[in-house]
């Protein structure tokens, strides 16, 4: 049984952090991040060509993380692989002792950096979960029996709480539960309220909900994400708060074009973002609006321990 499953099932507020493989073959940065997260998170999600941007695969880094004695969550999208390829990768994962799987639809190739790539989508996220369950039951997508002991997986999926109409997300969440999902990681959320109906559904069916937290780095990033990224809504007061923190500690009459000033402004906002993420994390836990949290630091994974510490973990 994976640490993640143990933590969630024991009632511990479980933490996962997310990272992306490199666009290249040097995994040293990712592995140094893993060291920083060791002992602080239950598991590390590894993204599967996130935003349709080609990188090393999720499975490769998951194996390396597993071999380093940490626990990965293999993200698997339907964008690039047929049902055969998905089940083959799942078998590899099990052979290397990887149990946690997060099934996702996957961003469309045209939004990424290899836009001519064929959109596969042989299986949707529900189908990917079923594909893992088929293997657990000892057979493949063609109904053929597997040789030897069947694998075991701890299956997860995602939900987008900030969505209109939200009922559509809840209906799909239920389908994912029926298909075998035991835990859910949400898209990044910045308000507690939208979590409620998802938490109710999770509690009703005995599955676990982990609130997605994307620490904000700057007011500009917050505004951009809120306007452009599906499922993300950053309330204006949070953007204002980042803006207000921007000039902390700068002398009067500073030159806004100065390189060091700009650096300090970025740092100020990033630090405020860490505080805000920690506050939100604590709020979610305090209000019982999730069974855990999934922190997506998007390249600033070194901030994850700081967030956890500030949130009192």
């Amino acid at each position, binding site marked *: 049984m994976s640490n993640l499953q143990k933590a969630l099932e024991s009632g511990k507020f479980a933490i996962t952090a997310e990272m992306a493989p490199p666009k290249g073959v040097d995994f040293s940065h990712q592995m140094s991040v893993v060291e920083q997260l060791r002992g602080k998170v239950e598991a590390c999600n590894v993204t599967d060509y996130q935003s349709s941007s080609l990188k090393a695969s999720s499975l490769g880094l998951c194996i390396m993380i597993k071999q380093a004695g940490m626990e990965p969550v293999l993200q698997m999208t339907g964008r690039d692989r047929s049902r055969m390829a998905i089940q083959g990768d799942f078998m590899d994962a099990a052979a290397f002792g990887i149990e946690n799987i997060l099934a996702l*639809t996957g961003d469309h190739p045209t939004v990424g950096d290899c836009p001519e790539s064929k*959109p596969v989508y*042989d299986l*949707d996220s529900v*189908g990917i979960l079923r594909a893992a369950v088929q293997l657990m039951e000892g057979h493949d997508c063609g109904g053929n029996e597997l040789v030897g002991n069947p694998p075991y997986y701890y299956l997860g999926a995602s939900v987008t709480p900030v969505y*209109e109409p939200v009922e559509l997300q809840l209906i799909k969440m239920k*389908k994912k539960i029926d298909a075998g999902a035991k835990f859910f990681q949400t898209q990044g959320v910045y308000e507690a309220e939208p979590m409620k109906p998802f938490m109710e559904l999770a509690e009703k069916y005995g599955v676990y909900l982990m609130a997605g937290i994307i620490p904000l780095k700057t007011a500009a990033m917050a505004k951009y994400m809120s306007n452009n990224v599906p*499922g993300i809504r950053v309330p204006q007061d949070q953007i204002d708060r980042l803006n207000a923190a921007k000039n902390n500690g700068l002398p009067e009459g500073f030159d806004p074009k100065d390189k060091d000033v700009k650096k300090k402004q970025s740092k100020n906002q990033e630090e405020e973002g860490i505080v805000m993420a920690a506050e939100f994390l604590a709020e979610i836990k305090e209000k019982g609006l999730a069974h855990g949290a999934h922190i997506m630091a998007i390249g600033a994974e070194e901030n994850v321990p700081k967030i956890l510490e500030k949130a009192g973990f």
Partner: protein
Amino acid sequence: MIITKSKKLEDVLDSLKGAKKVLITGCAECSTVSRTGGENEVKAMADTLTANGFEVVGTMVCEIGCNKNNVKKELKQFKDTPYDAVLVMSCGDGVQTMAGNVDVPVYPASDTMFLGEVERVTLFSQACKMCGDCVLGRTAGVCPITKCAKSLVNGPCGGAKNGKCETNPDVDCAWILIYNRLKKFGQLDKLEVSNDDKGHKINLYPATINLKEEKANE
């Protein structure tokens, strides 16, 4: 309706290089509606090819450009007219129907885009991907296979923003359309049913359907 788009003229001229006597054909069905191979387009192409040094030996707009026997009959009018190439201003099916009827090279003047509907005279939208297993009965008449960029069968991904698809902010999320219509019809229960992903054996190509054989096998 098969929606086609005219190829760039330079590409058409390039493909015809080496040909001298050209027969130009169009189609009175879809290509006429698509404005790629009706009477007007065929005539304009004849003028253009002539201006570019080709001898246009004849033009014809087929009644149904994808009906092999029909096209065969229509070609009889050119049986004494020598030509060394046919420029076909219709869909890829029409080009191949022509190829099956003549012993000279055929060249397409159009790109075949999709099976769609005519929203208005000059606006066409893709409607059907011919998946061989129609789901419209459970999706309130909105095709998720065609109108969802990921052909999802169990509801939307998380990629819609303000009801629009992540691939194109001008395109509605098909699953939100489906939800709204099912809700209006009091059929939201259809959305709650988990569907299997489509199998692809049914789409094995090249496909043929032989009604006589099927009837005999019934």
